[in-house]
């Protein structure tokens, strides 16, 4: 038996900055070894030398498509340690921004998988085009397109601007009209379905064993969502479903994102309807007390945790980021084993892997 070793990446027509060493036999993959670390920037070491406010922009950079969730996950343990309660309106604003970000990020993920990895340029244009509208909303609220630096210990930096509610409802109505169109063109498209169905199957028990998170987990039929199971922010005040799919293949992971967008629309509708008046932030000290805490936030790529050890000064003693992509990375060699080399891009794309987040 003769095998061939292939080096895929770090420059490849996918998202780049990751190398996968693939051993193939014919076009079957014997094993695949991901080689990461091309964007390892040492966030955790730098974070120990800056104070907690200065760390906010840096610790959200690892995933700029998903920055508000990273930001929240970093702020949550600090608030736990400081004992600061976020005012109700602040929680709602955080929830609204996170859901806007989730829609934008899921559109990005859908566009990347269907658009770049399976070659449907239409989905790439649809996904990125509609995502722009949600970035506009975020820009109106926070002043930046992707890197918001918006959550600070104790609350948020700005109140909802004038005309935000109308614009949000208008954009959501647009997306609701738009989703059936995406459904018509992609979800019921035989070409697209055949590319994803039965490719890269991750069964339920394997998903639990490997500890994958986010849409990858829910695509395998495990009903788990931090927003529901360990609520934070205003998620216990809104009503939503956890979409799960039983098959565990690439198509179901794509469809989980598609269904989650619908749930996010419903959460946004409820949150903007119920948002109470009041202060948006409570004054918090800059000192982080001694002790340790871990936060849990459901980002669009899965559960993220920041483990923070306080030092009693304004700098954290230790910050550990545990991001969704890093947890999902373990599933990649597992899924690639025995797959065809032509299915590799689809499997890679369906994990919605964000290399910068995994390397930190």
């Amino acid at each position: 038996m003769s095998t061939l070793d292939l080096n895929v990446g770090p420059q490849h027509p996918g998202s780049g900055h990751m190398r996968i060493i693939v051993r193939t036999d014919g076009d079957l993959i014997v094993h695949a070894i991901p080689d990461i670390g091309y964007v390892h920037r040492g966030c955790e070491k730098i974070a120990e030398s800056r104070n907690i406010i200065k760390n906010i922009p840096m610790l959200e950079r690892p995933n700029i498509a998903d920055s508000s969730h990273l930001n929240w996950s970093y702020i949550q343990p600090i608030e736990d340690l400081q004992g600061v309660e976020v005012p109700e309106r602040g929680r709602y604003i955080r929830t609204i921004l996170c859901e806007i970000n989730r829609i934008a990020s899921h559109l990005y993920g859908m566009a990347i998988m269907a658009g770049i990895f399976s070659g449907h340029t239409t989905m790439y244009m649809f996904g990125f085009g509609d995502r722009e509208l949600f970035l506009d909303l975020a820009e109106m609220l926070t002043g930046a397109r992707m890197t918001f630096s918006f959550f600070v210990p104790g609350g948020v930096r700005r109140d909802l601007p004038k005309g935000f509610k109308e614009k949000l409802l208008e954009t959501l109505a647009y997306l609701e009209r738009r989703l059936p169109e995406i459904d018509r063109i992609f979800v019921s498209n035989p070409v697209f379905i055949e590319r994803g169905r039965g490719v890269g199957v991750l069964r339920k028990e394997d998903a639990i064993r490997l500890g994958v998170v986010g849409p990858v987990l829910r695509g395998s039929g495990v009903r788990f969502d931090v927003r529901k199971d360990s609520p934070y922010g205003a998620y216990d005040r809104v009503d939503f479903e956890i979409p799960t799919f039983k098959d565990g293949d690439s198509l179901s992971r794509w469809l989980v994102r598609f269904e989650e967008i619908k749930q996010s629309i419903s959460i946004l509708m409820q949150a903007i309807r119920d948002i109470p008046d009041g202060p948006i932030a409570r004054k918090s000290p800059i000192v982080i007390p001694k002790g340790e805490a871990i936060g849990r936030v459901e980002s669009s790529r899965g559960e993220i945790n920041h483990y923070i050890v306080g030092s009693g000064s304004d700098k954290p003693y230790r910050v550990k980021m545990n991001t969704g992509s890093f947890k999902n990375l373990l599933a990649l060699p597992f899924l690639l084993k025995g797959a065809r080399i032509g299915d590799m891009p689809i499997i890679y794309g369906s994990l919605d892997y964000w290399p910068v987040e995994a390397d930190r």
Partner: protein
Amino acid sequence: MSADPQKESQNLSTSREVSAAPGIWVGSLRDLVERVARIGPLKQLINWSRIYSLWPVHLATACCGAEMGAMMSGRYDPERFGMQGAVGSMRQSDLLIIEGTVTKKMLKRVKVVWEQMPNPKYVIAMGDCACSGGLFHDSYSIINELEKALPIDVFVPGCPPRPEALLNAVIKLREKIRREEVYHR
């Protein structure tokens, strides 16, 4: 790692200085082409065709790739400038957009990509991290001064830069190409 790109560009510039008596061609074919290319309208024609075929390599070095993707998409549509969406093969591309941080591990690979690109080729340093290290300037594993490794044409600050800002940088690069000599590099 064979030659370093700066050295390579120096070699090119020394070979350009071959001169002969006017009217008699004694140099290489390349020399002849260089002379012809100095003729005004021809130079303009060549530069004009260059600025309408800036194809970027698909090499995302860090997170600015998301904004690069946004620029390639429907709203900003760089194909109006003859810029095709990211090209998989560097053999067919002219523009290297360094999207964000270049780590020490990645620099080797960036140089390999850069060396494989055919001349003329241009570099845009996109984002703070590519320009100066940005938020990670004091990290142990990143390159702060990328201009020492690659000849950068345009610096685009921003973290990440808006797609419009990147598009403006491309327009700035086009201005630069329009003004320069055909065998500048």
